[in-house]
């Protein structure tokens, strides 16, 4: 069943990618890699498995596992936790998304310094990222569960309002905002379809299919990576990992995706 859903998602993605190959010769190679990946299933499985190992293996100065990490539903509850993130954490006194909360748990439970816990959030083939693996594992435990982010306290309400402002904030040499590329239905850049993140359907699809294994990069990418790379295209400076703007923007987008069954780690071109 799970396998079948994945195959369907992957095939849909593949169909979109075909015109790209016609237009850009260099994409043919990418399509070939895509085909290969389809045969082998979604390589995101490897990140999920590695992440589960990291979750259960004692590490850090305190030689502790992450099994007591409280992702919002109580210490150790991973099932369904991602579908309710970001949320306000009373122990930290602030709103956190998954990636920020993982940093928190690695610091408080395992005794890592904050700098060490934030190191290498986005990996490469010769430098695997623990963050990406942990995110793959935790998110996989919300597969099929409807997104349910609640603005039921002032901190979450504020994070949402700030995220909305950041989404519409125009700046830089190109005057771009997120809304420039993601504010209308049915638009595309070159041949890449742009989800309208201001409408329910687009927000749901755009959010619930991350993290994703990117065939073109051979890496599993997290939602913060997605934001980071869109800000790069927006000609903004670099978004810091686990920063307040990142959390606020994620709150805005995750709340707009409410109701969508979470469907990741996915596979994308």
């Amino acid at each position, binding site marked *: 069943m799970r396998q079948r859903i994945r195959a369907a998602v992957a095939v849909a993605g593949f169909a979109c990618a075909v015109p790209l190959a016609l237009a850009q010769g260099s994409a043919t190679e990418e399509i070939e890699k895509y085909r290969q990946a389809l045969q082998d299933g979604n390589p995101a499985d490897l990140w999920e498995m590695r992440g589960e190992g990291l979750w259960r293996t004692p590490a850090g100065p305190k030689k502790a596992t992450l099994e007591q990490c409280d992702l919002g539903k109580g210490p150790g509850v991973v099932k369904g936790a991602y579908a309710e993130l970001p949320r306000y954490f009373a122990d930290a006194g602030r709103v956190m998304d998954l990636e920020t909360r993982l940093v928190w748990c690695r610091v408080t439970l395992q005794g890592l310094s904050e700098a060490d816990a934030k190191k290498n959030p986005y990996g490469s083939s010769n430098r695997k990222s623990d963050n990406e693996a942990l995110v793959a594992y935790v998110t996989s435990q919300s597969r099929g569960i409807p997104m349910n982010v609640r603005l039921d306290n002032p901190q979450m309400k504020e994070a949402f309002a700030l995220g909305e402002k950041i989404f519409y904030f125009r700046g*830089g040499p190109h005057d771009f905002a997120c809304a420039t590329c993601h504010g209308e239905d049915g638009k595309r850049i070159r041949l890449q379809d742009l989800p309208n993140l201001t409408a329910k359907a687009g927000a749901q699809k755009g959010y619930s299919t991350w993290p994703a294994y990117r065939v073109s990069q051979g890496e599993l990418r997290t939602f913060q990576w997605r934001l980071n790379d869109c800000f790069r295209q927006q000609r*903004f*400076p670099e978004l810091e990992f686990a920063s307040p703007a990142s959390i606020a923007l994620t709150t805005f987008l995750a709340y707009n995706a409410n109701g969508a069954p979470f469907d990741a780690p996915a596979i994308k071109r």
Partner: protein
Amino acid sequence: MNKSIRIALASGLAAAAVVGCASMEPKPSDAETSAKALQVMKASFKEHGQAKLDRLNQDETQALCSQYAGKELPRSVAEKIEKSNLATIKYPADGKYVGDWKSGEKIAQLGQGGQYSDDPKKPSGANCYACHELSKAEISYGTIGPSLWHFGKLRGYTDEMRRYAWGKVWNSEAFNACTNMPRFGHNGILTEQQVRDVVALLMDPASPVNQ
């Protein structure tokens, strides 16, 4: 650098905590939320290569267009934006609007420029094809903007249209407030000669746009 970010962060959190406790307080105004969002952004980005933090400082056009995003733009605000941007357009001193369409086509294809991952020593492109259909030969085009195929042929190869095309590429906001199109000349993405070549792509009868 890191320290100042941390301090800003801490003050941001302190502010958040104050808002948090004051749950009986009235909702912050739209302007207060905007100011707070800017403060949060300034604490959340770091400069990277050519992309410095000053890119978060909005000019008046950017600020107004952000303020009214997703709402209806009042006519008076639109006029104000168009008027001030119109005044910035530098038309060519020699009156020569049309350069080399072949070079214009390359500029319209090239996406590099302005990103922190781009080499600032290399010339910037405009990536017009990211948003516009221009010629029938290039099928990899985006749809954020309208099709420009047959632009000169349909509008007429007149001096007035050449001047309009120049102005639109130089500063798009002068003709349509809060457009999604970048201000290529005004913001220094393209040089004057590059603008001339892009105008040729639109306005030269021999250009693929007009075939």
